[in-house]
């Protein structure tokens, strides 16, 4: 990623400001499979401010700033539902657990039902359908 | 009754019974039966002919007899009527066996008078010998059916085995009858109560006792 794009864009990863702030005031607690890095503030929120006494937690995405990149186990941690990081409290992943995939809506890999033209447009039979004759038949 | 169903129409069945025809004696009998009915109403003979056919099958298989599908079709041909009409008759009357029966068809009456006099015990006695309602035992000896009133209420409870009635039964007396039959002997038909000859009152008459000696006029006592 070029230096200038780092300065002028905000939609991929962290801006320079965020990176700096994270380095100074935060400590990294872990990364997930996609490479997203999870931080928490070194100090608790000061008294007199909203959420006083709680811990600030944030994520720096490995790619696009798309909240659905966060897998379920880190989602809980980020939102303060749990105290410890996922590794500390979750059982080891089962073989049948699928890897997390971000929401694909709006992308080429979005789910489309079989009636959609991108999937071949095979729709269910409807009243008025007919089978046309062709001389080869 | 609901479990009554015609024996499946299989190739083996066709092979065994497909060539069914009257024996000379039965052919004569069938002719006599059909002749009872007026011209154009020969179909009325369907019930006696089905019985005759059942007896003939019985004679061939040494049982009470039953009606395989090809035999039903034979009767239909004899009377020139649609098979479905004959099958309707054969399935309507439970006295026609539409599935094979064993050597002895034990028909236990379960209607009210017999039930009050202990037909449940008779059924239990039959079941003790391995019989089950609607089934033939594995040795092919017994088929058990519960039937409705056979008209022997005065000597209830009763059991009909093939064509013979055995009345005034207790489980012990029934056991005796079945043992005799299994041994190839034929016990006395009718009442099994040694104190009884037919259906006369047991011991002394209790009703109309005055009639014993004279033609007593009861009218004044009503």
């Amino acid at each position, binding site marked *: 990623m070029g230096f200038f794009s780092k300065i002028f864009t905000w939609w991929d990863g962290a801006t320079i400001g965020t990176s700096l702030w994270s380095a100074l005031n935060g400590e990294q607690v872990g990364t997930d499979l996609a490479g997203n890095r999870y931080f928490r503030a070194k100090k608790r929120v000061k008294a007199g401010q909203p959420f006083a006494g709680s811990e600030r937690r944030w994520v720096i995405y490995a790619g696009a700033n798309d909240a659905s990149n966060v897998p379920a186990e880190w989602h809980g941690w980020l939102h303060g539902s749990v105290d410890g990081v996922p590794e500390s409290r979750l059982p080891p992943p089962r073989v049948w657990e699928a890897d997390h995939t971000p929401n694909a809506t709006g992308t080429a890999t979005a789910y489309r039902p079989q009636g959609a033209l991108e999937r071949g447009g095979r729709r269910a039979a409807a*009243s008025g359908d007919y089978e046309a*004759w062709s*001389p080869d038949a | 009754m609901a479990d009554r169903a015609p024996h499946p129409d299989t190739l083996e069945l066709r092979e065994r019974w497909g060539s069914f025809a009257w024996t000379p004696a039965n052919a004569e009998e069938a002719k006599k039966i059909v002749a009872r009915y007026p011209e154009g109403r020969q179909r009325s003979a369907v019930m006696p002919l089905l019985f005759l056919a059942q007896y003939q099958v019985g004679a061939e298989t040494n049982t009470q007899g039953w009606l395989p599908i090809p035999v039903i079709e034979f009767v239909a041909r004899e009377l020139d009527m649609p098979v479905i009409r004959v099958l*309707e008759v054969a399935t309507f009357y439970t006295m026609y066996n539409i599935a094979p029966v064993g050597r002895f068809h034990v028909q236990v009456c379960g209607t009210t008078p017999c039930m009050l006099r202990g037909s449940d015990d008779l059924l239990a006695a039959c079941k003790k010998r391995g019989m089950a309602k609607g089934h033939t035992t594995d040795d092919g000896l017994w088929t058990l059916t519960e039937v409705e009133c056979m008209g022997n209420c005065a000597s209830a409870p009763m059991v009909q085995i093939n064509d013979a009635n055995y009345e005034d039964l207790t489980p012990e007396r029934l056991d005796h009858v079945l043992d005799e039959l299994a041994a190839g002997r034929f016990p006395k038909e009718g009442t099994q109560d040694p104190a009884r000859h037919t259906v006369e009152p047991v011991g002394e008459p209790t009703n109309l006792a005055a009639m014993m000696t004279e033609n007593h006029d009861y009218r004044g006592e009503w």
Partner: protein
Amino acid sequence: MPKVTIDGEQIEVPDGATVLQACELAGKEIPRFCYHERLSIAGNCRMCLVEVKPGPPKPQASCALPAAEGQEIRTDSQMVKLAREGVMEFLLINHPLDCPICDQGGECDLQDQSVAYGRGGTRYYENKRAVTEKYMGPLIKTVMTRCIHCTRCVRFSEEIAGVDEIGALYRGESMQITTYLEKAAAHELSANVIDLCPVGALTSRPYAFEARPWELKKTLSIDVSDAVGANIRLDSRGREVLRALPRINDDVNEEWLSDKGRYMVDGLTRRRLDKVWIRKGGKLQAATWLDAFAAIKRAKPGASIAAIAGDVVDCETMFAAKTLLGAMGSTLLEGRQTGMSYPTGNLAAVNFNSTLAGIETADAILIVGSHVRWEAPLVNVRLRKAVKRGAKVFVVGPHWETTFPAEFLGDDAAVVHELPGHVTEALAKAERPAVIVGGAGLAAGVLDAALALDVQRDGWNGFNVLHMAASRMGGLMLGFAQKGGIADIARAEPKVVLALGADEVDWSQFAGSLKVYIGHHGDKGAHAADIILPAAAYSEKDGTYVNTEGRVQFAEKAVFAPGDAREDWTILRALADAFGVRVGFDSLAELQAKMISEVPALGVEGLASYGKLPKAGKTKAKGAIRYPIQDFYLTNPIARASVVMQRCSAELLHGEDLAEAAE
């Protein structure tokens, strides 16, 4: 004429009427399940209970009770109300509450009557009876748990169809309706039991779970599967005809319909011609209407143009073709595709003169070369009725399975000239003798010999010709006949032949002509054609049809033709523009007005009058009679395209065991 009092109102009823009929006359509705006007009285559903005085002090079954002088009948008393509720409660004891998944829902007698006459709730908490499904063939779907044992189906197959195959086995609660050994019901009218069934026990298998009756558009139409012209109702949703049901017309089909007429409708959505095709280099290629018209114009037919009408076209189409050809200066019209050439100068000689209803009253019937059961199943029903009244039936032609006692006299057509003594005697002595000449008979040339038979009495004309094509009588009235039949047209070597849905023609005799097929199904005709113009089937256009007894009937348009297909007359009208000739109509109404002005009989619904029978000619009948129908279920392009008809043919006629595969 007994006088009875019904709910305090005195009316006079005909002799022999039942109490139920008397109540109907008085305008009272009597609920019923087993009673049916056209079947024998069974009296086993007990739904029609009414209170009758004098008589026992209990409700009586009105369907089986003769109306007698002085009866006081009440249909509105408390006793009657309670009796109906009681009967309904008993019927519902063993009837499943599966209306939401039942195809009869919405047109179910039990549903309607339980709403009208039943109790509000149930008092029955025991287990219900269940009955195993029975296989009744490819057309009838059974859910026998729903059966209420009205025995209408049993009585129909025994009395009307004459094929004893449905029966009631076992007794009491265990009673079950079934075909013998669960074989398929294999006769031409089997599906009528579906209409008769008052509940959802017998429903239509091809129509299973397709639609609800209230979402269907009902269109009055005419059946084109044979020449009887049965009155039908086409039920359609959107652009698809989902089913055909018979309408009541006592003069034509009573209330029955042949299985073919009922179930070929699924053929209307298969093998459809939906675009224009032009043969280029020996191969048909998709094209546009303009290309096709240009190609036809290039043939420059002038007066050398012919039209051959198929078996299922309407009079309007034939008249449009006739007008077009007339404008071009041609009269090469023919409708008898297979090459028959009987004289058509007097249409009375090729008409079913006794009328379909009248043949019931005949007392001696000679059938010459007609497999009536296959060529016109509904006429067969009438013949069976006639025989039940005491008629004698003789048949000249190969043996077929009759549903009534009949004597077969021989296969050779020449038998008509020297009928056995007892046959001539029976015909001579009969008060209403009839002869029925079928298509095979016409082909063997028996027309003159049959005309020579004396079958006319005062007020009775027993000379009948039984056609097989719905378009035949209409075509003959419009002049679609050459003296020498189709051979005359072949001899004229027309440059252009218009095939109006003609699929039975031997096209090799028109090798030099430009064959333009105007039709709706890709069948034999389309494969032989040089240019295909897609047209509308009988369900897709308003049309006039004339049945074999000369009865003019109108059919209405139920749905639109698929794709590029157009109504036939518009195609012929456009062709006129392409040729630069005037036909004098721009709308269907104008066409019909013109047609009626030329052939006035086509404008009046009902029997057309053809006048007196001609004198018999001298043609000798000879040769073995061969019935033209080889397969009852596949006689026309629509039926041949129908999956249901194909399956019926395979299973019922050719004995293939498809029962398992379908489940």
